[in-house]
């Protein structure tokens, strides 16, 4: 009962519930993810920035933006220092405090988290969150070098581990402990490729069959090429404002009502359990508590599916399924677009693409449009969605964020 009141977004001051509006998102932009041989990092950012500014229904004078939080790993080392100032300069943002936030694949969701904190501190009213990464214009050796920089460097790297290898080791253990067949992992790839086929901004806009997903070349046993996200170029930008000011910019803001962050050991061999991510559970507990909701209240989610096993573990760590039962949601259709709780309507990292720093803010971009009913393709609009969740993981689970959003 209480849950249904909250789900309608009603506010009961001094009574049962006060919807916690921590900050509001009033604009969002995202480049298509994939190959952009003609665009630099700055130009990718500028494209997403222009879309975000243009998406503010009642307009926004860029001079009102007082801070820029950039999430990027900086793959390739194109601009290791002061990248946030470089981006601000490129689009003429002269009056911003510029920050760079780096937590591997979770960089721009941590940037969003810092932005919300900046607003909650009352220092800023209007801020910009950006995620950028350019991964496609370097040699494969160089790309592989950079993919390994976010794991444990002293032992895992010396054992010849890869990013896929980390999640493969988790998958082997998960499948062993819960007696799960590989095909349930591949079902995640099939679902997310289908969703990606409907998303004009996805890197892979092609549906695949379960047979295709199962017979792809092995990457890191038990994971094959179709269990893995690609490398991508891309950028995403969010305009975040103080909740009380939101209606000045749009009649349909999306509010952040909960957020949390967690961390864990870098090396997998230091973790007691390899069948889930402790950092995710920490982040989810905080976010649910702050938003005063339960996992069952979530209508749809964008979760971190860098590899198919990661989405199954996320189902469990976020509370959508009991521990050891996440794979059942892959099988019974619960998380399809038409299911009980659609997961990764955008296609996820798997099909939409994974430009490392841009992924977190791009998840929020998707949720912004889904909650406003403005998904770019009506056939992938989640019907009647009131409450969304985003979940972003850094590396093999050393860092993670969870955000809750309501209309």
């Amino acid at each position, binding site marked *: 009962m209480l849950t249904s009141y909250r789900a309608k977004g009603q506010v009961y001051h001094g009574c049962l519930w006060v919807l916690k509006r921590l900050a509001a998102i009033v604009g969002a932009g995202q480049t298509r993810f994939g190959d952009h041989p003609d665009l630099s990092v700055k130009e990718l950012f500028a494209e997403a920035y222009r879309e975000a500014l243009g998406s503010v229904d009642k307009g926004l004078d860029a001079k009102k933006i007082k801070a820029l939080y950039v999430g990027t790993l900086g793959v390739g080392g194109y601009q290791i220092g002061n990248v946030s100032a470089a981006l601000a300069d490129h689009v003429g943002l002269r009056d911003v405090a510029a920050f760079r936030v780096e937590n591997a694949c979770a960089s721009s969701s941590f940037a969003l988290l810092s932005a919300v904190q900046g607003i909650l501190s009352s220092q800023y009213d209007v801020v910009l969150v950006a995620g950028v990464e350019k991964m496609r214009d370097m040699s494969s*050796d*160089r790309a*592989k*070098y950079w993919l*390994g920089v976010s794991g*444990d*460097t*002293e*032992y*895992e*790297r*010396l*054992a*010849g*581990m*890869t990013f*896929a*290898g980390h999640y*493969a*080791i*988790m998958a*082997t*253990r998960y499948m*062993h402990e819960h007696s799960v067949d590989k095909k349930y992992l591949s079902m995640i790839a099939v679902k997310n490729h289908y969703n990606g086929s409907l998303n004009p901004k996805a890197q892979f806009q092609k549906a695949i069959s379960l047979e295709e997903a199962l017979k792809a*070349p*092995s*990457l*890191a*046993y*038990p*994971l094959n090429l179709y269990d893995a996200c690609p490398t991508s170029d891309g950028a995403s930008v969010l305009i975040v404002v103080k909740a009380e000011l939101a209606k000045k910019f749009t009649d349909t803001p999306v509010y952040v009502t909960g957020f949390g962050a967690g961390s864990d050991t870098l*090396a*997998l*061999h*230091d973790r007691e359990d*390899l069948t889930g991510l402790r950092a995710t559970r920490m982040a989810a507990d905080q976010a649910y508590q702050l938003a005063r909701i339960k996992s069952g209240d979530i209508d749809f989610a964008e979760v971190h599916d860098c590899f198919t096993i990661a989405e199954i573990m996320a189902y469990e760590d976020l509370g959508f399924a009991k521990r050891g039962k996440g794979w059942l949601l892959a099988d019974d259709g619960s998380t399809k677009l038409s299911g009980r709780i659609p997961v990764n309507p955008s296609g996820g990292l798997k099909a939409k693409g994974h430009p490392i720093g841009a992924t977190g803010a791009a998840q929020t971009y998707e949720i912004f449009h889904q909650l406003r009913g403005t998904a770019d393709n009506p056939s992938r609009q989640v019907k009647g969605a009131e409450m969304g969740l985003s979940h972003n993981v850094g590396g093999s689970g050393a860092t993670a964020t969870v955000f809750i959003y309501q209309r």
Partner: protein
Amino acid sequence: MAFVSVPVYGRNLRDKYGLEASKCTSCGFINFPSKGSCRRCSNTEGFTKVNLSGKGTIYSYTIIGAGSAPPEFSAQQKASGSYAVGIVELDEGPRIVAQLIGCDPEKLKIGLRVEAVFRKIYEEEGVVIYGSKFRCLSKKQ
């Protein structure tokens, strides 16, 4: 392309060459690889060194497919194809990541007995980097 520089590699040679662990004097937990705090009680000082037996069981594993190795392992992969990496649970308790050798990939499974062997890992900056790999044992061992 060097990833772990030779000086960085050299700083914890005794861990890597001799499987030297740190036993916490506060709670008795055996920490390996050694780090700045005890994994169990977060104590940051007071450790005694103990050498591990190098025997253990496979806790989990993967087989890194052709073409996907990090650049410093490209030479190994070109010479011998895909290779297995596992997390080994040592008999004294700690777990460690390492390459698994001498195991039939088709028969690799969780729970197999393994032992540490001293092997060349790769060459970088003109220096041969050594470390531990784990070799599959027959059931009785």
